[in-house]
């Protein structure tokens, strides 16, 4: 049985609540879309980390268990990079279609 001290769950709840309000508020900011996107993803990952560390007690578990927990995130990021060539190729194809068609005439 675990013997670690219990975290202050109400403080954790407060942080998650504040971050949720901040996330919704960020969508109304007059900033470039990319910057808002970075802000939103950062806040979401922070909230997910808070849930994992304090509610799921990863902060008090062995490091290897943390590695198991983080593995899906690492694979998810790899999947994004693996999809990148296809996603960027679509734009190139779309942009090059008129030129390619003109070249044949």
């Amino acid at each position, binding site marked *: *049985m*675990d013997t670690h001290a*219990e975290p202050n*769950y*109400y403080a*954790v*709840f407060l942080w*998650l*609540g504040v971050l*949720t309000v901040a*996330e*919704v508020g*960020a*969508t109304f900011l007059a900033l470039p879309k990319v910057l808002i*996107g970075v802000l*939103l*993803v950062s*806040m*979401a990952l922070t*909230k*997910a980390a808070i*849930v*994992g560390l304090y*509610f*799921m007690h990863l902060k008090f*578990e*062995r490091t*290897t*268990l943390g590695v*198991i*927990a983080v*593995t*899906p*995130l690492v*694979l*998810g990021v790899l*999947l*994004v990079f693996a*999809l990148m060539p*296809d*996603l960027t190729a*679509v734009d190139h194809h779309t942009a090059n279609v008129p030129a390619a068609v003109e070249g044949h005439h």
Partner: protein
Amino acid sequence: MSQAATMNQAAAVEPAETPLTPESWGKLGMWLFLAGDAMSFGALLCVYGALRVTSADWPRPSSVLGIGLTAFMTFLLICSSVTMVKGLSAIKHNDRAGARNFLLLTVLGGAMFLGMQAYEWSHLIREGLGLTGNPFGASLFGTTFFLTTGFHGCHVFGGVVYLAIMATQVMAGKYSSTNYSPIEIAGLYWHFVDLIWILVFTFIYLL
């Protein structure tokens, strides 16, 4: 008995506890299940992103979906995570009545979440959004929206049933301050459902 024979016998016997989670094998099993499940959600969110980036008429989610309602649903799941940890804390202190009440509050939070999701879905379906159709733009928006939120909703439903069973077992006196591992494992599942919703809320509704 020779040393080699002793070693062979030791290798054949399953160790009594895992070094990763000495409390129980079940906890390690739940973590491995959650890691696999997280990859499913990761794939769904990646597909959503890939289709959105390559679509010319993907609708702006905030103009189609109700952000206020889903922000409240997020808040509700966060609240239910707090009641879950308080329930675990109560049983650790041998407070069975407290554990039962907190678990039932968690079940209530999950059930309210499902009710709100059903309301949101029925509203969107009435407006014409479906698995194969979307009056607001790309039809795959509807497909990915319903698949991702539906997959998560199934997890919430599973969690509500799971925790209701745990609450019944707490009431039957099955758990105590020395035997609470199954509640901790159920809690891991519930917090995972909360964690995934945090990501779904950001990627599907806010971005």
